[in-house]
C-alpha cells in the first residue's frame, strides 16, 4: 500500500491573533479524501483553527504547509470584512448623491467562475430577486447566502465553512447540504459547527478545540470516541440547567450562622503511624475548597472524617451539619448533607442496576437502590441523564458503562439531592483526556449553577476548577 500524500500539514504551530488569543502547538494533518468538522465550546478557538488555514494570525512557532491557492471561505469574520469594506467604499466616495453600494450580483460576480452554478444557487436560495440590491442593504441571512455562493462558485481547491448553516431557512439549508454533498467527492472541506448533530454525513474526521488547543482528533467511524465527543459537546455547549431537587424530601434546615464543617486538632493515627495531626479546618457555606497533598498525606482519611466513613471520626473533635460527632447521631443523618464522589466509590459501586437507579440512589446515600422511590425522584433522575447526554441509556446497567461515563453518573448521583456539601475526591483520577474534560465541564456547571459548597481534592494542578478559591495543602509527615 502506498502512503497517501499529505495535503495540509500543520506542525507544532502556534499562532497569535489580534486580541491576544493564541492557538498553541497545533499538530494537524489533513489528507486527501478527508473532510473535517471542527467543534468546541464558545471561545475555544474553533474559528481560529479554521482561519489558520487561510493564513490568519501571526505565526509564533511551528509551520504550516500544503494550503492550496484557491480557498473558498465562509465565516462571520469574512462576512463582516466584506460589509466593512463596502461601508468604507461609501465613506471614501465623497459624492453629493448617497451611494447605494455594490449590488449583490456584482459581489458574486467578482469571484465567480461558474455563472450557471451561481444562477442555480441564487434561485435555490431565493436570492435572485435581490441581486440588484446593494450588498450592504441585505439582511444578515441574505449576505450569508451571498458569501456562500461566492465561495461555492469560485472553483475552490479547499472549502472552509465556519457555521455555514447558521441563520439559513429550511429550504436554503436543504439546498446547501445537498450541494455540499455533491462537492464532497472532489473538494476537501473543513467545517466549523457548534453542534455535532448538524455534522454532515460526508465528514470523515472531527477536531475538538479547547482553550486554543487541538485536544481531540477522532475518526467519524470510531463509534466510542464519537459518542464520548457527543457527550462532551453536550456538556460544553448546550444551555444546561441543573435539575431541581426533590421537593417532597427536603433536607433539615441548617443554621446559616454555623460552619458546615469544623475540625479542631484533628488527627488520624494507627498503632504505629500518624497520618496527620493538629489539623484545624473550618468550611463555611459557599466557600469552595481545594485540598491538595501528595499520596499518603491523608487526603482521603481527612475527607472520611467529615463523611463519617473513618471510624476515628468518633475520637476527634468534629462538628458537622449541626452535629457534634459521637453524640448519638447516625451516620445517615450526616450523609444526607453530603454528595460524594471518589474512585473508591466507583470501585465499590459494582451493583448491576440501571443508570437511572444509580442516580436515584443518591437520594438515599446508598450503593445500589434499596428503597421504594417516588415518581418525582425518577423524573429528576431522568433530567440528570438528559444533562449527561445519557437519557437514551437510562435502563442499561451501570457496570457495563465506560469508566468515564460511570464517573459522570456518580457525580450526578452525588448532586441529585443538591447537597450542602459536595465532596469530589480526585474526580479525574484514572480518566483519559476526553473523559477528564467531560468531568471538569460537569463540575464547572455544578459550581456555577448550584448552591452546593464544593470540596475538591486533586493533586494535579492543571485540573483547576473555576470558582474554587480556598486551598488546604496536606504535607506528608
Amino acid at each position, binding site marked *: 500500500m502506498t502512503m497517501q500524500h499529505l495535503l495540509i500539514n500543520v506542525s507544532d504551530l502556534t499562532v497569535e491573533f489580534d486580541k491576544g488569543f493564541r492557538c498553541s502547538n497545533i499538530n494537524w494533518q489533513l489528507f486527501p479524501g478527508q473532510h473535517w468538522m471542527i467543534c468546541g465550546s464558545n471561545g475555544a478557538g474553533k474559528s481560529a483553527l479554521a482561519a489558520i488555514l487561510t493564513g490568519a494570525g501571526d505565526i509564533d512557532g511551528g509551520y504550516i504547509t500544503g494550503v492550496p491557492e484557491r480557498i473558498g471561505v465562509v465565516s462571520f469574520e469574512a462576512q463582516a470584512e466584506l460589509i466593512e469594506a463596502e461601508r468604507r467604499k461609501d465613506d471614501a466616495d465623497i459624492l453629493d448623491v448617497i451611494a447605494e453600494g455594490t449590488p449583490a450580483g456584482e459581489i458574486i460576480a467578482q469571484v465567480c467562475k461558474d455563472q450557471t452554478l451561481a444562477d442555480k444557487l441564487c434561485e435555490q436560495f431565493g436570492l435572485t430577486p435581490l441581486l440588484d440590491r446593494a450588498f450592504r442593504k441585505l439582511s444578515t441571512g441574505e449576505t450569508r447566502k451571498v458569501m456562500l455562493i461566492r465561495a461555492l462558485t469560485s472553483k475552490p481547491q479547499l472549502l472552509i465553512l465556519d457555521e455555514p448553516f447558521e441563520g439559513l431557512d429550511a429550504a436554503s439549508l436543504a439546498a446547501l447540504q445537498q450541494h455540499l454533498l455533491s462537492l464532497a467527492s472532489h473538494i476537501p472541506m473543513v467545517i466549523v459547527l457548534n453542534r455535532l448533530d448538524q455534522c454532515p454525513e460526508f465528514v470523515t474526521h472531527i477536531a475538538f478545540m479547547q482553550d486554543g488547543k487541538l485536544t481531540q482528533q477522532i475518526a467519524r467511524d470510531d463509534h466510542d470516541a464519537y459518542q464520548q465527543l457527543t457527550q462532551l459537546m453536550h456538556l460544553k455547549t448546550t444551555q444546561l440547567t441543573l435539575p431541581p431537587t426533590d421537593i417532597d424530601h427536603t433536607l433539615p434546615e441548617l443554621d446559616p450562622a454555623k460552619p458546615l464543617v469544623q475540625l479542631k486538632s484533628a488527627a488520624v493515627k494507627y498503632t504505629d503511624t500518624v497520618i496527620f495531626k493538629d489539623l484545624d479546618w473550618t468550611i463555611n457555606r459557599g466557600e469552595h475548597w481545594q485540598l491538595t497533598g501528595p499520596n499518603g498525606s491523608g487526603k482521603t482519611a481527612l475527607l472520611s472524617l467529615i463523611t463519617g466513613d473513618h471510624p476515628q471520626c468518633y475520637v476527634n473533635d468534629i462538628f458537622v451539619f449541626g452535629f457534634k460527632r459521637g453524640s448519638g447521631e447516625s451516620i445517615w443523618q450526616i450523609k444526607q448533607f453530603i454528595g460524594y464522589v471518589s474512585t473508591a466509590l466507583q470501585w465499590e459501586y459494582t451493583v448491576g442496576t440501571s443508570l437511572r437507579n444509580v442516580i436515584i440512589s443518591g437520594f438515599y446515600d*446508598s450503593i445500589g437502590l434499596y428503597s421504594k422511590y417516588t415518581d418525582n425522584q425518577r423524573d429528576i433522575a431522568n433530567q440528570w441523564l438528559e444533562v449527561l447526554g445519557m437519557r437514551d441509556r437510562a435502563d442499561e446497567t451501570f457496570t457495563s458503562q465506560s469508566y468515564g461515563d460511570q464517573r459522570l453518573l456518580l457525580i450526578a448521583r452525588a448532586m441529585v439531592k443538591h447537597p450542602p456539601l459536595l465532596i469530589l475526591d480526585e474526580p479525574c483520577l484514572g480518566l483519559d483526556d476526553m473523559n477528564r474534560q467531560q468531568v471538569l465541564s460537569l463540575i464547572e456547571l455544578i459550581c456555577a449553577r448550584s448552591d452546593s459548597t464544593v470540596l475538591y481534592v486533586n493533586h494535579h494542578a492543571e485540573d483547576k476548577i473555576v470558582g474554587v478559591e480556598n486551598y488546604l495543602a496536606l504535607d506528608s509527615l
Partner: protein
Amino acid sequence: MSTNYFNTLSLREQLEQLGKCRFMHLDEFSDGVDALKGKKMVVIGCGAQGLNQGLNLRDSGLDVSYTLRAEAIAEKRQSWKNATENGFTVGTYEELIPTADVVLNLTPDKQHTAVVNSVMPLMKEGACLSYSHGFNIVEEGMQIRDDLTVIMVAPKCPGSEVRAEYVRGFGVPTLIAVHENNDPKGEGLALAKAYAVGTGGHKAGVLMSSFIAEVKSDLMGEQTILCGMLQTGSLLCFDKMIEEGIDPGYASKLIQYGWETVTEALKYGGVTNMMDRLSNPAKIKAFDLAEEMKDIMRPLYNKHQDDIMTGKFSETMMADWANDDKELLGWRADTAETAYEKTPATEDEITEQEYFDNGILMVAMVKAGVELAFETMTSAGIIADSAYYESLHETPLIANTIARKKLYEMNSTISDTAEYGCYLYNHACVPLLGDFMKNIKSDVIGAGLQLNHTGVDNARLIEVNDAIRNHPVEAIGSTLRGYMSDMKKIV
C-alpha cells in the same frame, strides 16, 4: 457436665420451638433503634462479628464499647488493635460489664461457657445478654441469671459482609430470637429488633425465630452443604480429574474458582438459574447425576440431622474440646496434605462459562447438597425460610472463601463448630460416593461434554426443567430473594 437444653423440653415444646420462624416486614421496624438509644452496649470480643457489628451499631447512633479478656489488652492483641484503631473505648470485664445495659457476647462459641460464667456476676441487675449464635444456650444448656434478658441477633453472613452491606446502605439477612426462659421484663423482642436495625439487618430481611431453630438449622447447614459438601466435592473432583489425565494446574483452578462461579448463579435465581447456565444436554446430565447422588447421600444427611437433634453431635464435639481439639487439629492437618490443597492453580484463564461447561459434576453436587439439606431440615420440622438461609443462601458466601485460598481459607474462616462438622461429613461422604465416582469420566468434570450437536429430547427436557423449578427450595427462595430485590433494585 452441661445439660442439653433442647433435650430437657417435651416433644411438643421441641416441635414448637423448631417451627418458630416468621419473616418480619419492614414496617415492624419503624421504631428504629429507639429501644437501645442511650443504653450502654458492651461487646465482648472484637473479632469477625464483634468488630463489624459494633461498627454498624455505632454508626447507627448507639453507644458501643468493647471489653476483652485481660491478656488481650495487656498483649495488645489483634482484637485490642481492632477496637482501639477504630476509636472504641476498650476496658476489662470489671471496668465495663457493670456499666452495660446490653452485653453482646461475640466470642467463639467454644469459649461461651467460660466467658459467660465470668461476666454474668458482673452484670447489672436487669441487663440484657445477647448472642449471635445459640449453641451455648441450646447445646450446652447454659443457665442465665433470672433477672437478665437473653436475646439472639444472628447475621446470616460473615462479619465482613455485615459491615460491607451496611456501608452500602443495606444489610444482611438476620435471624432474631428471645430466650423465653429469660425475658423477665418482656422487652427481649424490642431490644432484638432495635439491635437488628442497628446492624442494618432489617433492610435485608429479618426472621423471627427461636434459639433452638437457629442452632439446629445452622449446624445442619454448615456441616452438610455449606462446608462438608464443598470439601468432599473438591477432593473427589480433583482426584478424578488427575486420574482422567487433566492438567493438575487446570484441575486445581477449576475447583478453586468453580464453586464461587457456579454458586454465584444461585444468588440471582436459585438452583434453576444455576442449572440454566448449562447447555441442555449438560443440564440433563447434571440433573441425573444429582438425583443419583441424592439417593446415595440421603441417609448421611438424615444422620447428620438426627445427631444434631439428639445432641449427639455436640456431645462428640465437646468431648474433643475437652481433649484439646485433638481430632479437629488432626483433621485440619490432613486436609492441608491433600493433593488438591497442594497443587497450585494454573495462571491460564478459565472463562466464566467454562466453569459451568467443564464443571457439570460440581453443579450437580451443589444442586444435590442444597436440595438434600433443605429437604432434611424441613422434614425435621425446621421452617422453609430458615432452611433456605442455612442452605442455598449461604452457599455462595462460603464458596467465596475457597476461591480465596482453597479449603484452608474456608476452614479457617468458619467457626470451629462448622469445621468440626465439616470433617465429620467429609469422612463419611468420600467413601459413600466411592462407587458413584468410579463411573465418572472427564466429560462431566474437567473436559466438558464435547458433543457435536446440542439437541435433546423435548419431553425429557421439559420433565427435567419442571423437576428443577418445582423443588420447594425454589419457591421459598424466590419469595425471600424477592423481598431482598424488592428493596435491592425495584427495576
